């Protein structure tokens, strides 16, 4: 599904990704861990097409297509979803109008007719219940005045609405209380199928107790320095990065 080969990327003239190689098949869950500043969010931003970053080398294939040549909105419509580490507040743009535009853009891309008002509201209601997102929140402007945890829950609600084929969850667990973490993780698990894949970026084993990864990668200084099974995260928890890398 996703094939990253020797990916280099920089921001403001500074190289952050220094040759990433990663292969992800449908049905898999990959965890990416790594110290602060290693380049985890940079990798997700580059995959999503954030124009602030420049790809200097390498290639990325997504479902057989050249991902890096697509505009960000096309990547999204092709099924790539990023749950932002820091979701953006958009005052004045209602969650409803925002989601309707997103859902219908994807449907149009797939040659499907736009949802009518009734169908759309039904979909909103169904997906909201998946992550137990408060009705009041979908009635407000996008993320405006949402608490940290509410923003993260809202990201997974949007993921449920858009049914992506590859989801990148960038520290979706940070800011969530114990109960919210379980609810959000269960939501992610319910959305998981043999046709889609998930990349979970996290610092903590706690999330991986719920979302059990097939592979764990350690990203340090712009490169994947180790790859293992779910037990690698446990080893990391025990030894820390310094101990692990010795």
């Amino acid at each position: 599904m996703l094939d990253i080969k020797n990916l280099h990327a920089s921001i403001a003239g500074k190289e952050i990704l220094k040759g990433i190689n990663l292969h992800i098949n449908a049905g898999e869950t990959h965890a990416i861990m790594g110290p602060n500043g290693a380049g985890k969010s940079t990798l997700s931003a580059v995959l999503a097409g954030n124009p602030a970053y420049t790809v200097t080398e390498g290639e990325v294939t997504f479902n057989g297509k050249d991902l890096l040549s697509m505009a960000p909105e096309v990547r999204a419509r092709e099924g790539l979803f990023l749950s932002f580490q820091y979701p953006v507040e958009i005052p004045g743009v209602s969650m409803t109008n925002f989601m309707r535009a997103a859902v219908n853009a994807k449907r149009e891309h797939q040659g499907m007719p736009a949802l009518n008002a009734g169908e759309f509201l039904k979909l909103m209601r169904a997906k909201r219940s998946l992550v137990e997102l408060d009705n009041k929140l979908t009635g407000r402007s996008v993320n405006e005045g949402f608490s940290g945890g509410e923003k993260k829950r809202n990201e997974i609600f949007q993921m449920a609405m858009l049914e992506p084929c590859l989801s990148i969850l960038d520290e979706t667990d940070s800011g969530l209380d114990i109960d919210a973490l379980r609810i959000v993780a269960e939501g992610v698990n319910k959305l998981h199928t043999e046709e889609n894949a998930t990349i979970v970026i996290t610092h903590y084993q706690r999330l991986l107790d719920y979302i059990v990864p097939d592979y764990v990668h350690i990203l340090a200084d712009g490169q994947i320095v180790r790859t293992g099974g779910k037990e690698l995260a446990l080893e990391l928890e025990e030894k820390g990065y310094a101990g692990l890398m010795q």
Partner: protein
Amino acid sequence: MSVQHLHIAAGEHKHLVIAHVSDETAQWRITQEKDSVLTIHLFCLEKDDDTTCNALLDIEQVGEYAETYIYGLGVLTGKQQINVRTHVRHSVPNGKSSQLLKFAVKDNARAEFVGELIVAPNAQHTDARQTNRNVLLSPTATMHTQPQLEIYADDVKCSHGATTGQIDESALFYMQQRGIAPDEARRLLLTAFFHDVLTTLGEQEVEERIQRRIAEKLQ
């Protein structure tokens, strides 16, 4: 250039919509008597990319407890130019005025807003507000804003604010990441930007018509 004179009698409520100000100068001289209420809506949404618009609003409150509301919005594209000048004079006590003007400027267009607010020495208990917010949609677009406050009375409530910014790039990328095309994203962001001006119309139907005009202009 002709000046339109308007005298608003005591207790009278007047609503003025100034919508077509292309290639001419819309100049108004308005005096307001006691307890009168004047509401002006100014729209600069000319389709033609090559027009120059001038709007001069010269308003004086000559009777106490008069209220003046000026709401304006404009979307300027191509080589359009606009020059909006408001001159609001509180000559007597207990008056109220509130101005809210917003402009989105694109391409090589240029917008200028000069807001003169004068509170005469005896115009105590005046409550005057002026807000001007602008967004530049292209690096070559320009906005010039100039609030001029002359306040000669001491027991008054006056405030003014002027800001010029750009479309929030992080919001734009967030929306694109959800599959929304940049044009559509910008339209949603600008609808949000103009929202508070539009709601002052108090008529859903007119509001929607103006929104469509804004969307057309931005295509």
